[in-house]
Structure formats: C-alpha cells, structure tokens
C-alpha cells in the first residue's frame, strides 16, 4: 500500500501524487491538486481538526475511472473537493464516498461536469453521516452541462443519515445545457456563437475555482473545440 501521511500540525502542505492512501494527521492541513491518471482507487482519512482541500481538474481524459473514499474520522475534520470534468468521449466513472464518523465534521463537494462528443459520464457521490457524526455538515453540488448531442450523464447522489443531530445534510444535482437565452444575449452583443458558448462555460469554471490561472489555458483549448 502506497500511503502518504501528512504529519501532525503541518500547515498547508501541497501534494500532487498520493498513491493509494492519504492520511491527514491531527491539526494538519493539506491541499491536494490532482494530476489525474486513469484507474484510481484511493482512501483518505482525516484525523481530528485536520483539513483537506482537493482540486481535481480532468480535461479530456480518454477513459477515466476513479473511486475515492473520504473518511472524516476525527472531530472537526473538514473536507472540500472541487472537481471539474471536461470530457470529449469515452466512459468516465467518478465514485465518491464521504463518511462522517467524527463529531462536527464538515464536507463540501462541488462537481462541475461538462460533456461534449459522445462521452458517457457517471458521477456516483455518496454522503453518509454515522450515528457518531453529531453536528456534522455535508453538502454536495453537482452540475452537469451537456454541450453536444451524443453525450450521456448519469448522476447518483446518495445520502444516508443515521443521526437526527446533523447540522446540515444536503445535495443538489442539476443537468442543463447551454442556455439559448444566454447565448442569444451574448451573440446580440457581437460575439460569435462559439465565443458565446465558450464564455458561458468559462464562467461556470471560474465560479468554481479561485485558483484557475494555471489551468485556464488548457480549459480554453478544450473549449475552442466546441461547435
């Protein structure tokens, strides 16, 4: 087992490769910027008062499969995941399981999935609050944008709440397309249809991340191929 441990008390450690397991020790905080590779199965454990912020940007993966389990074990552990998926084709499978075991733990998962071509994406995001997870707070927001005709999206957001004393337990999932009205508004201001679509999609991406600068050129390139 390839395990990475973030030692107790470490602040703002930035990691990119983590192997199969990550443990964030007590009072440590970690930012994981993912360089995605195909076929992953990862387990992450957060100890007391630790924080993990994960940013995953998947641009045009050919065939992608990831299963990640987040165990919020220690009291007050916090998880935030921001996942951007831009796909052209192939079968892409994302499975996320968040398990709140400790008290006052928090998780916030934001997923934006934009599909072109004949990509078939599955997002299976499961949030669970155990009986021990009193005052836990969990939130999932998954937005899927289908840009072209042959795409297929499957979203399975699940919630299992075993304690009444949960502070917040919510998920929202939407699928939509590029709004005709929005496109018209922009094109009436002189943009080509392609430019308009790209602008809308960029807006969606930018609203997700503050730290987009590095990634934007790749996103722009992907967008430029939208019809």
């Amino acid at each position: 087992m390839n395990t990475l441990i973030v030692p107790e008390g470490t602040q703002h450690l930035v990691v990119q490769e983590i192997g199969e397991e990550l443990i964030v020790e007590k009072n440590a905080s970690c930012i994981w910027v993912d360089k995605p590779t195909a076929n992953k199965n990862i387990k992450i454990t957060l100890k007391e008062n630790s924080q993990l912020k994960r940013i995953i940007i998947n641009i045009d993966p050919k065939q992608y499969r990831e299963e990640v389990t987040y165990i919020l074990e220690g009291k007050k552990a916090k998880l935030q995941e921001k996942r951007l998926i831009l796909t052209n084709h192939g079968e892409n499978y994302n499975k996320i399981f968040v398990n709140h075991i400790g008290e006052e733990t928090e998780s916030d998962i934001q997923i934006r999935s934009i599909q072109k071509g004949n990509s078939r994406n599955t997002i299976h995001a499961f949030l669970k609050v155990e009986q021990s997870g009193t005052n836990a707070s969990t939130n999932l927001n998954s937005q899927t944008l289908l840009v072209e005709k042959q795409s297929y999206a499957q979203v399975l957001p699940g919630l299992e709440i075993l304690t009444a004393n949960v502070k917040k337990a919510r998920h929202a999932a939407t699928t939509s397309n590029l709004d005709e009205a929005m496109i018209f508004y922009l094109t009436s201001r002189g943009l080509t249809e392609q430019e308009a679509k790209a602008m809308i999609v960029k807006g969606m991406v930018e609203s997700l991340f503050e730290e987009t600068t590095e990634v934007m050129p790749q996103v722009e390139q992907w967008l430029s191929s939208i019809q």
Partner: protein
Amino acid sequence: MTQTISINEQYKEKYGFSVTDESIFKTAKGITEETVKEISKLKNEPAWMLEKRLHALKLFFSKPMPTWGGDLTKIDFNNITYYLRPTDKKAQSWEDLPEKVKETFDRLGVPEAERKFLGGVGAQYDSETVYHNLQEDLEKQGVIFTDTDSAVQKHPEIVKKYFGTIVPSADNKFAALNTAVWSGGSFIYVPKNVKVKIPLQAYFRINAKNMGQFERTLIIVDEGAEVHYIEGCTAPVYSSASLHSAVVEVIALKNAKVRYTTIQNWSGDIYNLVTKRAFAHENALVEWVDGNLGSKLTMKYPSVYLVGEGAKADILSVAFAGANQHQDAGGKVVHLASNTTSRIVSKSVSKAGGRTTYRGLVKIGKDAKNTKVNVRCDALLLDEQSRSDTYPVMQVEAEDALLAHEATVGKIGEEQLFYLTSRGLTEAEAMSMVVLGFISEFTKELPMEYAIELNKLMQMEMEDAVA
C-alpha cells in the same frame, strides 16, 4: 385481509357483483399451479386469464428476490394463504384487535360503525345510498367503475387489451406473484372526453374482496377524459395477512388527466410491496399522490412513463416511519418523448427508530427533447434513533434536458421550536405545526376529510413523540 362476517343476501343483490358459488373454499397454504387453477375456477374465469396466471406463476418461481430495498428475508412464501373466500373468513372479535388500533380510533374520533369495519369486525361499511346514486350517474356517462373480477366477466375486451401491458408479469417477482394470484382491485374505464366530477373512492364499492392482499387495479382513461381515484384511509386498517402485493396499471391516453391518491396505514406486521405504473400519452397528465403511514415495510415507487409528446407527470409522496417501520418509497419518471415535464416531491418523517428511504429514478431518453424535470426530496428526523436515506438515480441522454434535483435531511430546528413555544404553544404543538407545515405540499392535494384526518394523526404522533 379484513375478515368480515358473512355477507348477507341483500348486499349481494344490491351490489350485484359477480359472486360465484358459495361452496366453502380456501386454498391450502403455499402456492402451486393447483392453487392458481383453483382460484381461476372459483372465479369462473375465461381461459385467457388462467393462462396469464399460470405463465406468471412460472416467472414468479424463476425470478430471484430483489437484493436492494427493505429487508425481505423473513417472508415465507410457503406459509401464506393466497386466497380466502369472503364468506369463509372467520369473524374477528373486537376484543382481539390490538390495543393500539383501538386506541387510535379513540383518539382520531372514528365513528363507531367505521371502527368495526376498519378493524375487520363489523358488517360492510354502509355507504349504500351514496354508491347507488353514483353508479346511476356514471352509467349515464358510460363510465365503468367496478371491481376487476367483475370486469373480467363483463368487459373482457377492454381488460384483455390493457391488462399486463403497463406492468408485465416479467417486470419483477412481485408483479409476477400478483398476476398469478390476484383478486379484487378496481377497474375503471372513462370514455372519451368524459370528465368525472367527483372522486371515485375505493370504499364506495368496497367489499371484503377489495382490500385484499393481491389487488389488481386497472384504470383506463380515454382521450380527453378526466378522473380522480382515491383509495385507503388515514385511520389504521388492521389486516391479518402479512403480505400485500398489489399492482396498479394506469393508462392515460391523449389529453387525458388522471390523479390516483393513496393513503396507506396498514396496522400490523405487514409487508406492502406495490408496483404502480402509468403510461402518459400525448399531452396527458398523470398525478400520483402517495401517502405511506403504516405497514412494517413498504416498497413502492409510483412511476410514470411519458410516452407521448407534451405529457406531464407529478408525483407527490409522503412517508411516515415510526418504531419498527421502514418506508422505502419514492418515484420514477421515464421521459421517452419530447416537450415532457415531470416533478417529484417527496417528504418523509422518521421517529422512534423508524427508517425512511427515498428511491427515485429520472431517465431522459435521447429522443426526449426539451425535457424539464424537478425533484425535491426532504427528510425530517425527529429523534436520535431515526434514520433517513436518499438514493436518487439520474440518467440523462438528451443534451437539452433541464433537470434539477435537491435533497435535504435534518431535524426540526431548535430555533423554530423556541420561536413557536415562546408564543405559548407546547412542545408537542410546536413540533406538530412544523411537521404539518413540512408535509403541507402533500396535504393540500388531499380531499378535505383526508387532510383533516391526516393532520389529526400527525398531531397524535407528535404528542407521543414528546411524551
């Protein structure tokens, strides 16, 4: 199910349902080909129906039990009696009824006569006059409202045309079981452009057969027609049969409107496994209003297949799970045509260790252009021991679909309780107010008497919760 005392002669004449020979008959426990043949023979059924039953029986044996959903492991198929002639059911005595049931009648203020009926003790609930006037009106309009057994005899062409087309026996193990041993249930046919003004209620033509274990209901609403069907009641209904597996098929043809309201409050250790499905054709509207209050385990996911352009579906579901109860409910919508819209609203409340599960499916096919779907499922947990799960599945293949789904789980806010109690309401009154507010979207779709009863029932539950 409810074991009424012998049906008297007058009743038989007045209602005129086909009642076959009075010979004492009861199938042996367990289910075999012989059982099915005997049932069919007793009902004097045509060969085509017997064939359907036998075919379904084979499927029932070959299909595995579902591995998802509630815990079905304790069902012993060999220990169930699949058919009981009404005249042969032993009278239940009032004393034998569980205390809790009797107490609930008291607190709800259920009239004496109703109590006996609901408890399965008394004679038929007396709704003769209302029923007769209704029947006259319906006949004038060409509306058929009868029980399914009678429909097989009197309207075989219609039954043959639609029976099993919406829920084929191969659909799932319990649909197969139902198709093999079904008895009772309602049959409604509304001719073109006829709008039935008053809701058709199951209990109008209720007799012992209807609240049966394996009811088969078939509703066909022809082009431009409208009907509202209501079944069940909020007061607890006692049943000694442990397995209820009904199938409901609804066909809403072009421009038709159908609303099917069910409130189920089975009292006792009952497994309530129901398959309810509707096909909505061009511009049709199908509404499922589904209340689940009783039973030990209910698995029920009313669904609508939108097969015609412009069709609409609305599924409103409320589930309440108390101690030792598991309500596994939800809704399914399948969009197969363009310009269709659907909405699913599910509200569930669990207390005292009860468990509520929302299971939903939204499927939007490739050719379903311009689809709009909205799903909202909220769960309220009233105390530490309760549990709530949400398992929605969304499959979207059309790129211009608009689908929004949101789910929340929580408890009654401390701030809300404080605000209301600071106004002089007791804690139970405050909780009651919040819970009723929580399910108000559902309650306001119910006919007045049901809404009032449901509110009373909820208030009672809250008093118990706080005590």
